[in-house]
């Protein structure tokens, strides 16, 4: 279809699907367990810019010469405009088709994650880490539509704009009109444990080790610096736990019990002290890391989540920071 692509359809063009979207399709193709979903391609964002009722106003705004002093005001204006603009009906129609199919596959109790997949995000040059957002536990079509717009708007969050300013200061030439975003709509994993697996030790650039951060609940507490997670260093050549450091894990992110989206709660004291992964789970993660590094031919930064003792891979991207000599 013109605007959406199901994970099992098979093309992996990062320019259309964004880094995250294309990597999820690749993961699925090599038999890695990925929650089912579809991608709203980057051309839908372009069509939104070109054909929505506020198109002229939006494009005019994005031509603004960005400066540090204007960032907050500018970000607010763009975000408000995007969120209040209707997505062209031909795109909405396809999202509806995708959502209907996904719902059928996922069952009536399922909820959905809406995740940004910017076309400049997660390339080998820069990670754009954390600049664009994800919106979790959406239940209805209307919630999904709003979260899609929020994802597009997050391209212009102060954080994302700062990153772009910074990259331009370093000689890159990123224009606000050139940035595109695909959006991943995916069955939510009700994660009991989540984390990040680096298939090289990013701390000491040791390519003979893997490094894992893990915590209870959803992984956003790790990505957003909210907690000190557990840390494990593994021997990469042969599974062996070299080091375990239990982190404080004072807070955890869970599904909002009153409805959609997530909330942050205090972790029960006894769980703060317990290691969030057992040896069996660590071995499974080690195997996952080994497979992905082999398949993608480079050390990977992998986001994963565990529900009912099953590991789901939510993203795999190249590690951007390893020094060449190691």
């Amino acid at each position, binding site marked *: 279809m013109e605007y959406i692509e199901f994970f099992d359809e098979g093309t992996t063009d990062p320019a259309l699907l964004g880094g995250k979207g294309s990597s999820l399709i690749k993961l699925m193709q090599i038999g890695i367990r990925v929650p089912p979903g579809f991608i709203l391609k980057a051309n839908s964002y372009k069509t939104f810019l070109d054909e929505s009722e506020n198109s002229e106003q939006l494009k005019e705004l994005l031509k603004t010469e960005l400066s540090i002093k204007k960032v907050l005001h500018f970000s607010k204006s763009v975000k408000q405009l995007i969120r209040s603009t209707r997505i062209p009906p031909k795109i909405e129609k396809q999202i509806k088709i995708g959502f209907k199919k996904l719902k059928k596959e996922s069952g009536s109790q399922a909820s959905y994650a809406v995740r940004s997949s910017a076309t400049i995000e997660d390339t080998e040059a820069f990670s754009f880490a954390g600049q664009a957002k994800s919106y979790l536990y959406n239940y209805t079509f209307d919630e999904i539509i709003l979260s899609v717009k929020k994802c597009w708007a997050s391209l212009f969050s102060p954080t994302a704009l700062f990153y772009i300013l910074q990259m331009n200061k370093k000689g890159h030439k990123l224009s606000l009109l050139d940035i595109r975003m695909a959006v991943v709509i995916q069955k939510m994993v009700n994660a009991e444990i989540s984390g990040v697996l680096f298939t090289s030790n990013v701390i000491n650039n040791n390519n003979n080790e893997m490094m894992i951060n893990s915590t209870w609940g959803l992984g956003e507490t790790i990505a957003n610096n909210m907690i000190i*997670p557990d*840390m494990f260093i593994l021997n990469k050549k042969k599974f062996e736990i070299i080091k375990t450091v239990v982190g404080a894990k004072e807070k955890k992110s869970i599904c909002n019990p009153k409805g959609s989206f997530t909330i942050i709660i205090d972790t029960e004291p006894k769980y703060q002290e317990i290691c969030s992964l057992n040896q069996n789970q660590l071995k499974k993660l080690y195997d996952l890391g080994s497979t992905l590094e082999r398949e993608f031919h480079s050390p990977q930064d992998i986001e994963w989540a565990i529900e009912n003792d099953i590991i789901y891979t939510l993203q795999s991207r190249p590690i951007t920071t390893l020094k060449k000599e190691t």
Partner: protein
Amino acid sequence: MERIGEGLSCSSKSEAIGELVFVKTVEDVINLFDSATGKICLVEEAGTTTLGPILSDLSGVLCTTGSAGSHLAIVSREFGLPCVMGVRFNVKDLNTLNGKKCKIMTEEDDKGIVLIES
């Protein structure tokens, strides 16, 4: 210099010296935009990737929570910046550290320590 805290060094064998600035809001970041060079920024928990616009000018980053897998650590490594996450300070009021000369260094493989000129 006096040792005031330790945490997880996110890039080993790293060391930085600079004036410590406690950054709490996006406005603090904007105010630092033209004067961030050589400073060490201290931030607390969420939203800390807003250090983005000044990151490459800084000489180091400290965060009271987080880990090597945090976005802040990933981006700091991208800029080759010494970064210590999950710092536990033995100082009650972190505001008192503002403006002081600070040194961060890796003591062991992944243990980062924070020193301050008293």
